[in-house]
């Protein structure tokens, strides 16, 4: 058994080397297909993670009318803190808001210094506990507060969470669609490369049959070739994906401005990387097996 395995491996190695030009071509196509899948996968990973981050850190800011009496502000502060989903409530004074803006945007410090009056209103910041985030109860509460006298505006980051989740799904879908088309292309290319290999080795196959090979014995090296081509292609795509992930921020990062955070790539996790590798091997195997059973009459 071990002898046969060794034999198949060495035969597969020889065959891959013998037809190396066409094999390199098919590995390149597989690699590009899986790279496309990988890029969208890592983009989707980032959007999903951002959405998760936002939803676990969900805050609502109620901006108050400047002329609102202190007693009304206190009453509102108490009322906002009542629901069970509230983790904490904090009063933000106009001075604190100005300071926060100054720290967040240091490049606008000159404008802030030149202001005659503080333009920021006071606000009440509410943090929702992670279990209740994005629940209907929170949304209903926020909507009811919008119409309250003294509340001029409400900022709720749930919209962003939903947008992120939507983008993440969209990136995943585009990746799956484009990847699907490219995988199909890979499948046909492997299938045709193996077909060419079968034709090129017709003489050898004939000899193997005449010296007493079983059909399986003839097929296995072709199957292995497909698997190796698929694995090499997907492995190469993983390597290129890591290069893309590392180089993308350097070359395009700063020019993307605010989109930089959204278009950041995240490394695929272990399961996704294993999935890409297995996908490559499976594409290679199916492509080769289809071709072998169709064109090899054994």
């Amino acid at each position, binding site marked *: 058994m071990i002898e046969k395995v060794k034999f198949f491996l060495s035969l597969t190695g020889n065959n891959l080397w013998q037809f190396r030009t066409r094999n390199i071509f098919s590995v390149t196509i597989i690699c590009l297909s899986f790279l496309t899948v990988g890029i969208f996968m890592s983009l989707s990973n980032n959007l999903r993670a951002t959405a998760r981050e936002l939803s676990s850190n969900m805050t609502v800011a109620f901006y108050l009318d400047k002329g609102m009496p202190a007693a009304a502000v206190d009453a509102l502060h108490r009322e906002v803190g009542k629901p069970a989903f509230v983790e904490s409530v904090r009063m933000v004074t106009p001075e604190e808001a100005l300071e926060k803006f100054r720290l967040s945007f240091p490049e606008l410090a000159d404008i802030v210094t030149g202001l005659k009056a503080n333009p920021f209103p006071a606000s009440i910041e509410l943090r929702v506990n992670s279990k209740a985030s994005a629940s209907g109860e929170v949304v209903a509460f926020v909507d009811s507060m919008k119409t309250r006298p003294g509340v001029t505006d409400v900022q709720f980051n749930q919209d962003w969470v939903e947008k992120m989740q939507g983008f993440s799904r969209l990136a995943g879908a585009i990746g799956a669609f484009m990847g699907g088309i490219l995988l199909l292309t890979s499948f046909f290319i492997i299938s045709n490369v193996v077909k060419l290999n079968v034709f090129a080795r017709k003489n050898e196959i004939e000899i193997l049959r005449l010296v*007493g090979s079983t059909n399986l014995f003839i097929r296995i090296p072709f199957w292995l070739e497909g698997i190796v081509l698929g694995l090499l292609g997907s492995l190469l795509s993983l390597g290129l994906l890591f290069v893309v992930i590392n180089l993308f921020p350097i070359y395009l990062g700063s020019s993307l401005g605010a989109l930089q955070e959204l278009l950041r790539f995240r490394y695929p996790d272990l399961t996704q990387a294993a999935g890409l590798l297995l996908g490559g091997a499976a594409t290679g195997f199916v492509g080769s097996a289809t071709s072998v059973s169709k064109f090899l009459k054994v």
Partner: protein
Amino acid sequence: MIELFHIWKQYQKPFWALNDVSLQIKDSDFYFITGPSGSGKTTLLKTIFRETLPTEGQILINGVNILKIHDSRIYTLRRRMGIVFQDFRLMFHRTVFENVAVPLQVIGVARKEIRRRVFNTLQKVNLHQKMWELPSRLSYGEQQRVAIARAVVNNPEIILADEPTGNLDPELAFEIISLFKDINRQGATVVIGSHDRELIRHFGDNILFLQKGKIVGKEGHP
């Protein structure tokens, strides 16, 4: 025992490549099939190892009707045979060693044992020094010897050889047939298709004469 009953083979109408051939080759026989070019020697050998199916007739090997063996089980028949083809059928991008090792590899013989047996066999056909050469770098006669080594390396029960000495000088041809004779003495049945009268005269115990696909004479066993 190889038994052929009323074998007819037609490739193209109206010619018959084999015309009602019946034959019995006993175990450990050394058998020559002879006749002019186109007499049906190759077709007859091909039907015995089932590369070609006869149009009519039955072929039994040790009582088993080989025409009824399913295609996927043909290897069971061929593993018991060593075949030397007229056109050698070598794998030209594999070394001499790899070519000769193939019949052992398909039955899963250990690598060490393969090395030993291939070397010994190549020594017998005087090619051990060219073990790592590609067949394309060998002469015609040397390629033929590689084909012979491949046929005998796994000590088959039956050896079928189609013009195995066609490209060899008389001295080497003599040696090769002597090698077949040695293998035959160890119990293998050897069937050789040849039109080399000198060799047949010297080694032929049993001779079948073919002409236009028909048996026109027999010597030796009835």
